[in-house]
Protein backbone atom coordinates (compact mmCIF):
# COMPACT_ATOMS: atom_id res chain seq x y z
CA UNK A 1 0.00 0.00 0.00
CA UNK A 2 1.58 3.14 -1.24
CA UNK A 3 -0.52 5.64 0.66
CA UNK A 4 -0.67 3.81 3.94
CA UNK A 5 0.73 6.63 6.07
CA UNK A 6 -1.53 9.15 4.39
CA UNK A 7 -4.54 6.88 4.91
CA UNK A 8 -3.57 6.29 8.50
CA UNK A 9 -3.32 10.01 9.21
CA UNK A 10 -6.70 10.62 7.60
CA UNK A 11 -8.26 7.91 9.66
CA UNK A 12 -6.62 9.26 12.81
CA UNK A 13 -7.93 12.75 12.12
CA UNK A 14 -11.46 11.50 11.53
CA UNK A 15 -11.35 9.36 14.69
CA UNK A 16 -10.09 12.30 16.72
CA UNK A 17 -12.98 14.40 15.44
CA UNK A 18 -15.40 11.64 16.34
CA UNK A 19 -14.06 11.33 19.86
CA UNK A 20 -14.13 15.10 20.22
CA UNK A 21 -17.74 15.22 19.10
CA UNK A 22 -18.70 12.46 21.51
CA UNK A 23 -17.32 14.57 24.34
CA UNK A 24 -19.69 17.43 23.55
CA UNK A 25 -22.13 17.73 26.41
CA UNK A 26 -25.38 17.39 24.51
CA UNK A 27 -24.32 14.19 22.75
CA UNK A 28 -23.45 11.99 25.65
CA UNK A 29 -21.86 11.99 29.07
CA UNK A 30 -24.52 10.56 31.26
CA UNK A 31 -25.03 12.55 34.45
CA UNK A 32 -24.07 11.23 37.86
CA UNK A 33 -27.58 9.80 38.34
CA UNK A 34 -27.03 7.10 35.74
CA UNK A 35 -24.74 5.18 38.09
CA UNK A 36 -27.59 4.37 40.43
CA UNK A 37 -30.19 2.81 38.17
CA UNK A 38 -32.33 0.74 40.57
CA UNK A 39 -32.26 -3.00 39.93
CA UNK A 40 -34.75 -5.78 40.64
CA UNK A 41 -32.67 -6.61 43.72
CA UNK A 42 -33.12 -3.09 45.05
CA UNK A 43 -36.87 -3.35 44.64
CA UNK A 44 -36.92 -6.68 46.47
CA UNK A 45 -35.34 -4.94 49.46
CA UNK A 46 -37.97 -2.18 49.60
CA UNK A 47 -38.99 -0.76 52.96
CA UNK A 48 -42.37 -1.86 54.26
CA UNK A 49 -44.54 -0.52 57.08
CA UNK A 50 -48.12 -0.56 58.30
CA UNK A 51 -48.31 3.19 58.70
CA UNK A 52 -45.54 5.50 57.57
CA UNK A 53 -45.10 8.66 59.61
CA UNK A 54 -42.66 11.45 60.25
CA UNK A 55 -41.55 13.33 63.35
CA UNK A 56 -40.04 16.80 62.96
CA UNK A 57 -37.56 18.17 65.50
CA UNK A 58 -38.70 21.69 64.73
CA UNK A 59 -36.05 23.30 66.98
CA UNK A 60 -33.31 21.84 64.79
CA UNK A 61 -34.70 23.56 61.69
CA UNK A 62 -33.09 26.78 60.56
CA UNK A 63 -34.22 28.44 57.33
CA UNK A 64 -31.01 27.11 55.77
CA UNK A 65 -31.79 23.52 56.71
CA UNK A 66 -35.33 23.89 55.37
CA UNK A 67 -33.87 25.22 52.13
CA UNK A 68 -31.45 22.28 51.94
CA UNK A 69 -34.26 19.74 52.45
CA UNK A 70 -36.42 21.58 49.96
CA UNK A 71 -33.67 21.52 47.35
CA UNK A 72 -32.97 17.83 47.91
CA UNK A 73 -36.67 16.98 47.55
CA UNK A 74 -37.31 19.22 44.58
CA UNK A 75 -34.23 18.04 42.68
CA UNK A 76 -35.11 14.40 43.30
CA UNK A 77 -38.65 14.80 41.95
CA UNK A 78 -38.07 17.30 39.16
CA UNK A 79 -40.21 19.92 40.88
CA UNK A 80 -40.06 23.08 38.75
CA UNK A 81 -38.72 26.28 40.26
CA UNK A 82 -41.46 28.80 39.48
CA UNK A 83 -41.66 32.00 41.53
CA UNK A 84 -44.88 33.71 42.52
CA UNK A 85 -48.47 32.49 42.78
CA UNK A 86 -47.87 29.59 40.37
CA UNK A 87 -45.19 28.16 42.68
CA UNK A 88 -45.03 24.39 42.96
CA UNK A 89 -43.94 23.10 46.34
CA UNK A 90 -43.49 19.66 47.84
CA UNK A 91 -41.43 20.83 50.82
CA UNK A 92 -41.42 24.39 52.12
CA UNK A 93 -41.08 26.50 55.27
CA UNK A 94 -43.57 28.70 57.09
CA UNK A 95 -43.97 30.68 60.31
CA UNK A 96 -45.65 29.39 63.48
CA UNK A 97 -48.83 31.34 62.70
CA UNK A 98 -49.10 29.82 59.23
CA UNK A 99 -48.15 26.33 60.36
CA UNK A 100 -50.40 26.11 63.44
CA UNK A 101 -53.18 28.66 62.96
CA UNK A 102 -55.49 26.84 65.38
CA UNK A 103 -53.02 26.74 68.27
CA UNK A 104 -53.66 30.38 69.36
CA UNK A 105 -50.38 30.76 71.17
CA UNK A 106 -50.71 34.39 72.21
CA UNK A 107 -47.78 34.53 74.60
CA UNK A 108 -45.38 32.24 72.85
CA UNK A 109 -41.72 32.04 73.64
CA UNK A 110 -39.98 34.29 71.18
CA UNK A 111 -37.82 31.46 69.93
CA UNK A 112 -40.87 29.40 68.90
CA UNK A 113 -42.74 32.41 67.58
CA UNK A 114 -39.97 33.29 65.13
CA UNK A 115 -39.10 29.73 64.17
CA UNK A 116 -39.57 28.54 60.60
CA UNK A 117 -41.33 25.19 60.39
CA UNK A 118 -40.75 22.72 57.57
CA UNK A 119 -44.04 21.79 55.91
CA UNK A 120 -44.92 18.98 53.53
CA UNK A 121 -47.93 16.84 52.67
CA UNK A 122 -49.18 15.48 55.99
CA UNK A 123 -50.12 12.07 54.56
CA UNK A 124 -53.33 12.19 56.61
CA UNK A 125 -55.01 9.08 58.00
CA UNK A 126 -58.40 10.28 56.72
CA UNK A 127 -57.35 12.42 53.79
CA UNK A 128 -59.86 14.95 52.52
CA UNK A 129 -58.16 15.07 49.10
CA UNK A 130 -58.88 11.38 48.53
CA UNK A 131 -62.53 11.83 49.42
CA UNK A 132 -63.08 14.67 46.97
CA UNK A 133 -61.03 13.38 44.02
CA UNK A 134 -63.53 12.45 41.29
CA UNK A 135 -61.14 10.21 39.32
CA UNK A 136 -59.37 8.49 42.21
CA UNK A 137 -56.12 9.95 40.93
CA UNK A 138 -55.40 10.66 44.59
CA UNK A 139 -55.63 7.52 46.68
CA UNK A 140 -54.35 6.14 49.93
CA UNK A 141 -52.04 3.16 49.99
CA UNK A 142 -52.45 0.51 52.71
CA UNK A 143 -49.27 1.83 54.35
CA UNK A 144 -50.86 5.25 54.83
CA UNK A 145 -49.11 7.11 52.04
CA UNK A 146 -51.47 9.42 50.17
CA UNK A 147 -50.33 8.98 46.59
CA UNK A 148 -51.11 10.65 43.32
CA UNK A 149 -51.49 8.82 40.05
CA UNK A 150 -50.48 11.64 37.73
CA UNK A 151 -51.78 9.66 34.76
CA UNK A 152 -55.34 9.94 36.06
CA UNK A 153 -55.35 13.54 37.29
CA UNK A 154 -57.66 15.70 35.20
CA UNK A 155 -56.64 18.91 36.96
CA UNK A 156 -60.02 19.72 38.50
CA UNK A 157 -58.29 20.91 41.71
CA UNK A 158 -60.99 19.64 44.07
CA UNK A 159 -58.16 18.13 46.11
CA UNK A 160 -56.52 21.53 46.43
CA UNK A 161 -59.77 22.93 47.77
CA UNK A 162 -60.16 19.91 50.06
CA UNK A 163 -56.64 19.89 51.51
CA UNK A 164 -56.59 21.97 54.72
CA UNK A 165 -52.80 22.30 54.55
CA UNK A 166 -52.25 23.77 51.09
CA UNK A 167 -49.94 20.89 50.38
CA UNK A 168 -50.90 20.56 46.74
CA UNK A 169 -49.78 22.55 43.74
CA UNK A 170 -51.21 22.88 40.27
CA UNK A 171 -49.13 22.98 37.09
CA UNK A 172 -50.47 26.03 35.32
CA UNK A 173 -47.88 25.59 32.57
CA UNK A 174 -45.43 23.05 31.22
CA UNK A 175 -43.02 22.60 34.14
CA UNK A 176 -40.08 21.34 32.07
CA UNK A 177 -38.46 24.68 31.22
CA UNK A 178 -38.35 25.51 34.95
CA UNK A 179 -36.50 22.39 36.10
CA UNK A 180 -32.92 23.28 36.96
CA UNK A 181 -31.29 20.19 38.44
CA UNK A 182 -32.82 17.39 36.46
CA UNK A 183 -33.17 13.78 37.64
CA UNK A 184 -33.77 11.55 34.58
CA UNK A 185 -35.01 8.64 36.73
CA UNK A 186 -38.16 10.43 37.86
CA UNK A 187 -40.79 11.68 35.43
CA UNK A 188 -41.77 15.30 35.15
CA UNK A 189 -45.40 16.40 35.14
CA UNK A 190 -47.41 18.06 32.43
CA UNK A 191 -49.60 21.14 32.33
CA UNK A 192 -52.94 20.72 34.09
CA UNK A 193 -51.86 18.16 36.70
CA UNK A 194 -51.85 18.59 40.49
CA UNK A 195 -48.82 17.35 42.39
CA UNK A 196 -47.57 16.98 45.95
CA UNK A 197 -45.11 15.20 48.24
CA UNK A 198 -45.42 11.41 48.01
CA UNK A 199 -43.28 10.51 51.07
CA UNK A 200 -40.72 9.35 48.48
CA UNK A 201 -42.73 6.21 47.73
CA UNK A 202 -40.36 5.50 44.84
CA UNK A 203 -37.36 5.61 47.21
CA UNK A 204 -39.03 3.46 49.89
CA UNK A 205 -39.59 0.89 47.12
CA UNK A 206 -35.83 0.51 46.68
CA UNK A 207 -35.07 0.49 50.40
CA UNK A 208 -34.05 4.13 50.81
CA UNK A 209 -35.37 6.72 53.24
CA UNK A 210 -37.08 9.84 51.90
CA UNK A 211 -34.73 12.43 50.45
CA UNK A 212 -35.64 15.16 52.94
CA UNK A 213 -34.91 12.81 55.85
CA UNK A 214 -31.45 12.18 54.40
CA UNK A 215 -30.85 15.89 53.89
CA UNK A 216 -32.11 16.89 57.36
CA UNK A 217 -29.23 15.21 59.21
CA UNK A 218 -31.36 13.77 61.99
CA UNK A 219 -33.87 16.60 62.30
CA UNK A 220 -36.53 14.46 60.62
CA UNK A 221 -37.37 10.99 61.93
CA UNK A 222 -39.14 8.66 59.54
CA UNK A 223 -40.62 5.30 60.42
CA UNK A 224 -43.51 2.97 61.10
CA UNK A 225 -46.06 4.57 63.46
CA UNK A 226 -47.75 1.23 64.08
CA UNK A 227 -44.53 -0.38 65.35
CA UNK A 228 -43.99 0.37 69.05
CA UNK A 229 -40.28 -0.37 68.79
CA UNK A 230 -39.63 1.98 65.88
CA UNK A 231 -37.44 5.08 66.16
CA UNK A 232 -40.32 7.39 65.43
CA UNK A 233 -42.49 5.94 68.23
CA UNK A 234 -39.55 6.24 70.63
CA UNK A 235 -39.08 9.88 69.66
CA UNK A 236 -42.81 10.60 70.04
CA UNK A 237 -42.88 8.86 73.45
CA UNK A 238 -40.07 11.04 74.72
CA UNK A 239 -41.13 14.42 73.35
CA UNK A 240 -44.31 16.44 73.30
CA UNK A 241 -45.45 16.67 69.70
CA UNK A 242 -48.39 18.35 68.00
CA UNK A 243 -50.01 17.88 64.63
CA UNK A 244 -51.15 20.62 62.29
CA UNK A 245 -54.83 21.72 62.35
CA UNK A 246 -56.25 18.84 64.45
CA UNK A 247 -59.73 20.38 64.12
CA UNK A 248 -59.70 19.69 60.38
CA UNK A 249 -60.19 16.08 61.40
CA UNK A 250 -57.77 14.56 58.93
CA UNK A 251 -55.28 13.09 61.44
CA UNK A 252 -51.91 13.96 59.87
CA UNK A 253 -49.07 11.43 60.02
CA UNK A 254 -46.51 14.23 60.43
CA UNK A 255 -45.77 15.21 64.05
CA UNK A 256 -44.02 18.42 65.12
CA UNK A 257 -41.88 18.40 68.25
CA UNK A 258 -41.86 21.98 69.54
Amino acid at each position, binding site marked *: MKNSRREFLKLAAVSAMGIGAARLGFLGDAPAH*AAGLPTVGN*YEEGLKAKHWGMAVYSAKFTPERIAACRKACHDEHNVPDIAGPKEIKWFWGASYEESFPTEHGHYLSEEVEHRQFPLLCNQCETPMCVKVCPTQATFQRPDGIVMMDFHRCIGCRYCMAGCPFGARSFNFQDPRPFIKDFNPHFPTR*MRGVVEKCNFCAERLAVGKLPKCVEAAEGALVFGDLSDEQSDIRKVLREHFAIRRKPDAGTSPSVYYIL
Partner: protein
Amino acid sequence: MYNAKYIIPGILFFLALALVPVVYNMGHQFEVKPELPKDQKECVLPTNEMRDKHMQLLNEWRNEAVRDGSRIFVNAKGQKYVKSLTNTCMSCHPDKAKFCDRCHETVGVAPYCWDCHNLTPNQKSPIPPVASAATGGH
Protein backbone atom coordinates in the same frame (compact mmCIF):
# COMPACT_ATOMS: atom_id res chain seq x y z
CA MET B 1 -83.82 8.49 -13.14
CA TYR B 2 -83.54 12.21 -13.54
CA ASN B 3 -80.08 13.52 -14.38
CA ALA B 4 -78.62 10.03 -14.65
CA LYS B 5 -75.96 11.29 -17.01
CA TYR B 6 -74.58 13.43 -14.17
CA ILE B 7 -75.31 11.22 -11.18
CA ILE B 8 -73.88 7.90 -12.39
CA PRO B 9 -70.52 9.31 -13.50
CA GLY B 10 -70.52 11.26 -10.25
CA ILE B 11 -70.97 8.10 -8.19
CA LEU B 12 -68.32 6.32 -10.23
CA PHE B 13 -65.90 9.21 -9.74
CA PHE B 14 -66.56 9.22 -6.01
CA LEU B 15 -65.99 5.46 -5.75
CA ALA B 16 -62.77 5.74 -7.73
CA LEU B 17 -61.57 8.52 -5.46
CA ALA B 18 -62.48 6.58 -2.32
CA LEU B 19 -60.71 3.47 -3.56
CA VAL B 20 -57.49 5.17 -4.65
CA PRO B 21 -55.67 4.44 -1.35
CA VAL B 22 -56.78 0.81 -1.41
CA VAL B 23 -55.64 0.30 -4.98
CA TYR B 24 -52.46 2.28 -4.42
CA ASN B 25 -51.41 0.09 -1.51
CA MET B 26 -52.54 -3.21 -3.03
CA GLY B 27 -49.74 -5.73 -3.08
CA HIS B 28 -47.58 -3.65 -0.77
CA GLN B 29 -46.83 -5.34 2.50
CA PHE B 30 -47.12 -3.29 5.66
CA GLU B 31 -43.68 -3.35 7.13
CA VAL B 32 -41.99 -1.11 9.65
CA LYS B 33 -38.47 -1.84 10.82
CA PRO B 34 -37.69 -0.24 14.15
CA GLU B 35 -34.06 -0.29 15.22
CA LEU B 36 -33.52 -3.15 17.65
CA PRO B 37 -30.99 -3.05 20.45
CA LYS B 38 -27.65 -4.52 19.42
CA ASP B 39 -26.56 -5.86 22.79
CA GLN B 40 -29.84 -7.50 23.82
CA LYS B 41 -31.36 -10.63 22.26
CA GLU B 42 -34.79 -10.73 23.88
CA CYS B 43 -37.37 -8.37 25.31
CA VAL B 44 -39.42 -8.86 28.47
CA LEU B 45 -41.97 -10.80 26.38
CA PRO B 46 -41.66 -12.48 22.95
CA THR B 47 -41.35 -9.99 20.10
CA ASN B 48 -44.77 -10.76 18.62
CA GLU B 49 -46.47 -10.18 21.94
CA MET B 50 -44.58 -6.96 22.50
CA ARG B 51 -45.55 -5.73 19.05
CA ASP B 52 -49.23 -6.44 19.62
CA LYS B 53 -49.61 -5.68 23.30
CA HIS B 54 -46.92 -3.28 24.48
CA MET B 55 -49.54 -0.64 25.15
CA GLN B 56 -51.56 -2.99 27.36
CA LEU B 57 -48.39 -4.10 29.13
CA LEU B 58 -47.33 -0.50 29.79
CA ASN B 59 -50.80 0.31 31.07
CA GLU B 60 -50.71 -2.68 33.43
CA TRP B 61 -47.21 -1.75 34.57
CA ARG B 62 -48.23 1.78 35.43
CA ASN B 63 -51.30 0.70 37.38
CA GLU B 64 -49.44 -2.00 39.27
CA ALA B 65 -46.38 0.13 40.02
CA VAL B 66 -48.14 3.36 40.96
CA ARG B 67 -51.32 2.08 42.58
CA ASP B 68 -50.33 -1.30 44.06
CA GLY B 69 -46.64 -0.64 44.64
CA SER B 70 -45.82 -3.86 42.77
CA ARG B 71 -42.73 -2.91 40.83
CA ILE B 72 -41.23 -6.21 39.67
CA PHE B 73 -42.45 -7.92 36.51
CA VAL B 74 -41.86 -11.66 36.12
CA ASN B 75 -42.25 -13.06 32.60
CA ALA B 76 -43.14 -16.61 31.55
CA LYS B 77 -39.48 -17.65 31.71
CA GLY B 78 -39.22 -16.44 35.28
CA GLN B 79 -36.96 -13.49 34.43
CA LYS B 80 -37.51 -10.42 36.57
CA TYR B 81 -37.67 -6.86 35.32
CA VAL B 82 -38.36 -3.51 36.94
CA LYS B 83 -41.65 -2.04 35.76
CA SER B 84 -40.39 1.22 34.39
CA LEU B 85 -40.77 2.87 31.00
CA THR B 86 -37.73 5.13 31.25
CA ASN B 87 -35.45 2.88 33.27
CA THR B 88 -36.27 -0.51 31.74
CA CYS B 89 -37.74 -0.06 28.25
CA MET B 90 -35.68 2.96 27.31
CA SER B 91 -32.37 1.67 28.62
CA CYS B 92 -32.47 -0.99 25.87
CA HIS B 93 -34.23 1.15 23.27
CA PRO B 94 -32.50 4.45 23.87
CA ASP B 95 -33.48 6.12 20.61
CA LYS B 96 -37.18 6.95 20.57
CA ALA B 97 -36.98 8.33 17.03
CA LYS B 98 -35.58 5.07 15.63
CA PHE B 99 -37.70 2.72 17.72
CA CYS B 100 -41.02 4.13 18.94
CA ASP B 101 -41.62 6.83 16.35
CA ARG B 102 -41.06 4.65 13.28
CA CYS B 103 -44.19 2.62 14.01
CA HIS B 104 -46.21 5.33 15.71
CA GLU B 105 -45.76 7.76 12.84
CA THR B 106 -46.56 5.11 10.25
CA VAL B 107 -49.82 4.10 11.90
CA GLY B 108 -50.62 7.66 12.98
CA VAL B 109 -50.82 7.40 16.75
CA ALA B 110 -49.39 10.01 19.11
CA PRO B 111 -49.06 8.59 22.63
CA TYR B 112 -48.37 11.27 25.22
CA CYS B 113 -46.00 9.25 27.40
CA TRP B 114 -43.19 11.71 26.69
CA ASP B 115 -45.02 14.71 28.07
CA CYS B 116 -43.91 13.44 31.48
CA HIS B 117 -41.60 10.44 31.09
CA ASN B 118 -37.99 10.91 30.22
CA LEU B 119 -36.50 9.49 27.07
CA THR B 120 -33.63 7.59 28.69
CA PRO B 121 -32.16 7.21 32.17
CA ASN B 122 -29.13 9.10 30.79
CA GLN B 123 -31.04 12.11 29.55
CA LYS B 124 -29.36 15.37 30.51
CA SER B 125 -32.19 17.88 30.33
CA PRO B 126 -35.95 17.57 30.76
CA ILE B 127 -36.76 18.76 27.26
CA PRO B 128 -36.80 15.80 24.87
CA PRO B 129 -33.86 16.31 22.51
CA VAL B 130 -35.86 15.12 19.50
CA ALA B 131 -38.79 17.46 19.05
CA SER B 132 -41.40 15.54 17.11
CA ALA B 133 -45.02 16.00 16.20
CA ALA B 134 -45.69 12.75 18.01
CA THR B 135 -44.91 14.25 21.40
CA GLY B 136 -47.84 15.89 23.01
CA GLY B 137 -50.08 15.87 19.97
CA HIS B 138 -53.22 14.69 21.67
